[in-house]
């Protein structure tokens, strides 16, 4: 059960990436949120049998990873961890959809396999884009950007609160479960009753903590919203960033980029 500390460490690592200082990190968060949103909508809007046209979209996270100086291997591993889930979803498709869609020499590939692969590729794309956004922007900045784009203030306050206390309570939960582990002589997991009282105590302590936090915040003049120093400005760079990527996505949506490149090459050889 190293998983709690491990998960928290992983969480923190992803979070710390946002502290980088590249041109992309300095862009107004709103621009990055908008571009990521457009990216995801574009990727999702493809038909379910589309595969090759999706591949050029990997350029977007890849270029951002490069420019933003992010650890490519780390992010790729995080995305790869999720692919089995997507695969499980898609696995039913080859079972039910067996029309032959593609003939590569003697190998017939059914439509089901294509749509299954398409699901995996799309999952990787959207998840990758979300990780890149997070690593370039940071969660609090994304929240503020969303607020300025119209998310209800109450919900944004809630997100900020949650984010601040995840680490605190995660560590507390980790401590509690490690203490339990040390006292349970190799039994892997607690029984239902033990778990109930463990989580119950965690809940009580959480509640008390919330009351203390609240009093402390009142003493410091909390009025229902987090005062933030707004530094971001939606200037020329942001506009260019949004317009450029949107145009790129539109182009790739309307033309199959992979197909173009491929026919250029195969046409050359034949």
């Amino acid at each position, binding site marked *: 059960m190293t998983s709690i500390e491990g998960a928290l460490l992983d969480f923190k690592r992803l979070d710390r990436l946002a502290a980088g200082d590249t041109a992309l990190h300095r862009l107004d968060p709103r621009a990055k949120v908008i571009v990521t949103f457009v990216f995801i909508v574009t990727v999702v809007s493809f038909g379910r049998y589309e595969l090759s046209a999706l591949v050029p979209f990997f350029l977007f996270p890849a270029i951002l990873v490069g420019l933003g100086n992010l650890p490519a291997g780390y992010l790729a591993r995080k995305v790869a961890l999720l692919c089995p889930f997507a695969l499980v979803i898609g696995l039913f498709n080859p079972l039910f959809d067996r029309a032959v869609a593609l003939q590569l020499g003697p190998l017939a590939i059914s439509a089901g396999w294509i749509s299954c692969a398409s699901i995996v590729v799309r*999952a990787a794309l959207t998840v990758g884009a979300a990780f890149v956004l997070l690593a370039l922007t940071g969660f609090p900045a994304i929240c503020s950007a969303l607020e300025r784009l119209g998310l209800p203030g*109450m919900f944004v306050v809630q997100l900020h609160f949650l984010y601040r206390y995840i680490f605190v309570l995660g560590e507390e939960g980790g401590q509690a479960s490690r203490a339990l582990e040390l006292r349970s002589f190799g039994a892997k997991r607690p029984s239902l009753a033990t*778990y109930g009282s463990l989580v119950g105590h965690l809940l009580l302590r959480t509640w008390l903590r919330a009351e203390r936090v609240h009093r402390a915040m009142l003493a410091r003049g909390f009025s229902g919203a987090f005062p933030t120093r707004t530094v971001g400005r939606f200037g020329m760079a942001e506009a260019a960033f949004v317009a450029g990527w949107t145009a790129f996505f539109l182009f790739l949506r309307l033309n199959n980029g992979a197909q173009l490149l491929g026919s250029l090459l195969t046409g050359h050889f034949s």
Partner: protein
Amino acid sequence: MWATSAATLAYSSAKLRRDFDERVPPLMGVLGAFLFAAQMINFTIPGTGSSGHLAGGILLTILLGPHAAFLSIASVLVVQALFFADGGLLALGCNIFNMAFVPAFMVFPLFRRLAGNAPGRLRLNVAILAAALVALQLGAFAVVLETTCSGIATLPFASFLLMMQPIHLAIGVVEGLVTVAVLGLAQKARPDLLRGSLEGRFDLGGKRVLLAFLVAALLVGGGLSRYASVLPDGLEWAVGKLTGKTELEASSGVHAALGAVQNKTALLSGYQLPAPARKEPGPASEKATAAGSGTGVAGVVGAVLTLAVACFCPYLFRGRRRTKPEI
């Protein structure tokens, strides 16, 4: 689904702002974080030997009341979607509906009715258990409905339904038992925690609002999600939920059941790999397939190339970046 969830978000936010109890926001945030921590701790499910954890929708709803709980659970889902890609960004709308809207607005009234005003211990426990059961059944049903609407998977409606409901019945029992245990302890130590939700401090704004939301949900679910959830993750969470909600690990009875269902569907449809067309490779048939596969080959070649470029990209830019200061 996105629209419904967004509308509920706006509504709940407005509602909370209107009767602003200044004690609530920190409580919501910290309890959300608590949910996070609690979900990381696993326990043994009696009888099966597999492990599970709390989902907590009903727990938070009972503690906080529907509006605050809705926001709190939704925020947890947002963070999970972003950081752990649990369920993915696109399914977030559906996810919020299934795991926050369902327990907070559809099941909570039932819980109130069952528990009454000043329930005894047994009645309270039964109400909690029933609420957890119903919440998970409704949530599972919603998953099946949304998946079928989105049309991304070709899994037939009936067999998917047959697969999901019994599994979630089991999960619901476990979830209910855990919620009872946690709340029982909390109530013993701090009897005031539960009083709020039992004495009707939370006005649901009448049945009309609920009805309006249901109609909106159906409309949106039928129309918009057709487009909005044609997405990879639309199913990721279906399965993610299947495996993730009360996280069942390998060798559990549920997995065996799942495997059985899978085998059954496979048998029914006479599963076999598509046999390649075994024609004599004569010149005529070659020509015929060449036309069809020409685009396919071009697509494959191009895809591989662009993928290679994309993989190389980070290092390309990185290289430049590193050499720059030296210049």
